[in-house]
């Protein structure tokens, strides 16, 4: 993810008309109305924290995808496409699709039949309280900080794009999120994420359509990019044979193993922010279909994110520059490419819709973080460690108050980031520390019955510490990049990939070694938690076209075709 915090330009990128303001105001009115309508349907713990476990595959799937489709993602990856070319698409295809399908077909049955409320909750069942406590505390801490980072990023973007006051943006967005999540709980957050999904497509799809029209089609666009940048900018795999032959400075092993096999697997299968949406599905078939539906749409997202960045390379009259240069010279930065393209094609009304899509992306990002934080705090920290004998009503009240407190902490984080902008970089890096090792722990827990509680805990702890150590090593001594990322030419994204890969390996190794040194749990205690000891539930006797496996195969075929086309 490309940070947006350093955008300190003067003036504004776009000017909204009266009808644009009406569209923005209508969005706020609608999300509050949805929260108000759903408040009567969030009275029990299952309702408030798990949306009653009654979401259809489509609602859960679109919400699962939208939880990751925030405005930071949209603007950051459009900027990365301008900076690195079509290679940025790897984060949407190999960096997402295999992991989503793996979640659907391999991991989801275990999450679902264990009836856990959260990923730390699964760790409690499989490895015991210490593993849950470690993952819950780290997740809760980071999630609420990420919510604040989202809030600050939104306020900063609104200041730059529209000239809005930062305090106004922070408080209006946070109060709105606090109201609709505390009223309707997870169901409210999910409804607004699905709404955001439609707004983003409605608001952003015109840019690639009109951009391709202006550029004269895809073939002409490629020629123009080759002229203005390099031919490597339109190839996804062709330049990955060497670190120096592509704009990102990465080797294909980093993309396939670091990104595809570890980092994306960790994010899409164990980050509770996204997994929580699937746990709300109404039955096992919906729970398996939801990530597959998400994967189908995920493959299309580059159309509204990567393509605008590439079009910016071809049609924008000015050359965009890195954040640091933009801050010093007043030029536009890479991350401005999406708002600039919106302003290029969108007149009154359309511009309002595009800006609303960005606001919706930021706000649902905040709401997603806050609702996940609320669940983990209530069920994995407060209930087991502080008060395990209260009534269901008490935990619902705790959830509502935690939502408000979580939003207030996020506001505090937003102001902290405002004072010390570099914190934003650290928070994002910290968050990534936990993802890869957590994937190793959950994966071994589900697939290897010999893994023990001590093995799970020490593997998770050592994996996390190794990730932090590598990051600190490169911070202190930048030449260490040649060891961590296997090349002195590696860029920050490449470092993330290899850091994830090594920390995953450390986690798995420690888990295996400690497990063999400690006593295994009886097989009878592992039913419903581990392959080999669990009867995986069937989706039922359905025609082939209704089975998750069939649709997963369709997604795989399309995935390969797309990668070959844009090789």
């Amino acid at each position, binding site marked *: 993810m490309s940070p947006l915090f350093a955008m300190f330009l003067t003036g504004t990128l776009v000017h909204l008309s009266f009808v644009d303001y009406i*569209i923005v105001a209508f969005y706020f009115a*609608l999300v509050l109305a949805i929260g108000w309508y759903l408040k009567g349907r969030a009275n029990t713990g299952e309702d408030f924290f798990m949306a009653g476990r009654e979401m259809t595959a489509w609602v859960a799937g679109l919400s699962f995808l939208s939880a990751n489709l925030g405005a930071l993602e949209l603007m950051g990856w459009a900027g990365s496409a301008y900076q690195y070319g079509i290679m940025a698409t790897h984060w949407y295809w190999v960096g997402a699709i295999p992991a989503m399908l793996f979640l659907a077909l391999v991991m989801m049955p275990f999450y679902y039949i264990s009836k856990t409320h959260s990923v730390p909750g699964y760790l409690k069942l499989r490895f015991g309280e210490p593993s849950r406590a470690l993952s819950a505390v780290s997740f809760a801490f980071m999630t609420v900080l990420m919510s604040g980072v989202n809030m600050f990023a939104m306020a900063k973007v609104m200041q730059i794009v529209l000239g809005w006051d930062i305090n106004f943006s922070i408080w209006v967005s946070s109060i709105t999120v606090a109201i609709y999540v505390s009223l309707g709980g997870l169901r409210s957050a999910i409804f607004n994420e699905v*709404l955001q999904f*439609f707004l983003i497509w*409605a608001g952003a799809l015109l840019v690639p359509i*009109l951009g391709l029209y202006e550029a004269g089609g895809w073939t002409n666009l490629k020629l123009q990019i080759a002229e203005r940048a390099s031919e490597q900018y339109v190839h996804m795999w062709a330049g990955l044979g060497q670190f120096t032959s592509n704009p990102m400075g990465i080797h294909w092993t980093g993309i396939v193993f670091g990104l595809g096999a570890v980092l994306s697997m960790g994010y899409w299968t164990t980050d509770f922010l996204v997994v929580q949406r699937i746990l709300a599905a109404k039955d096992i078939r919906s729970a398996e279909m939801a990530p597959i539906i998400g994967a189908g749409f995920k493959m299309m997202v580059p159309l509204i994110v990567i393509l605008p960045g590439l079009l910016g390379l071809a049609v924008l009259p000015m050359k965009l520059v890195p954040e640091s240069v933009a801050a010093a010279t007043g030029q536009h930065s890479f991350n401005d490419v999406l708002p600039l393209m919106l302003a290029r094609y969108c007149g009154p*009304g359309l511009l309002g819709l595009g800006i609303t899509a960005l606001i919706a992306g930021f706000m649902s990002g905040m709401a997603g973080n806050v609702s996940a934080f609320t669940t983990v705090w209530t069920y994995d920290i407060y209930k087991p460690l502080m008060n395990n004998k209260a009534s269901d009503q008490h935990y619902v009240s705790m959830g509502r108050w935690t939502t408000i407190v979580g939003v207030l902490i996020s506001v505090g984080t937003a102001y902290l980031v405002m004072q010390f902008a570099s914190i934003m970089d650290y928070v994002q890096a910290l968050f990534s520390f936990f993802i890869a090792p957590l994937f190793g722990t959950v994966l071994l827990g589900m697939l290897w019955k010999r893994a023990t509680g001590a093995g799970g805990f020490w593997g998770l702890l050592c994996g996390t510490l190794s990730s932090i150590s590598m990051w600190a090593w490169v911070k202190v001594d930048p030449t260490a990049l040649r060891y961590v990322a296997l090349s002195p030419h590696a860029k920050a994204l490449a470092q993330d990939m290899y850091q994830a890969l090594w920390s995953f390996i450390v986690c798995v190794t420690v888990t295996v070694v400690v497990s063999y040194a400690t006593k295994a749990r009886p097989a009878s205690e592992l039913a419903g938690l581990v392959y080999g000891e669990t009867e995986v539930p069937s989706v039922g006797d359905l025609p082939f076209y209704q089975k998750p496996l069939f649709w997963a195969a369709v997604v795989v075929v399309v995935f390969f075709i797309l990668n070959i086309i844009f090789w």
Partner: protein
Amino acid sequence: MISIWFFIGISLLVNGALILAAGIYQLMNRPETITIQLYDLHANVWWGAILFVVGLGYCLFFRPRGSRA
């Protein structure tokens, strides 16, 4: 319970109507200074119309009635 798709329909319908209206207004009152590219394609007219029709379809199909979730 009102379906989520009904809320989606409301959003597309209202936004489509506003964008279409803004587009028609611009069509009848051409601005002196054109600040966007491809103005003559009148994207806000046809895009607003598409959103309006899709939103109307969602509203009608998923309108609150009985027990549809």
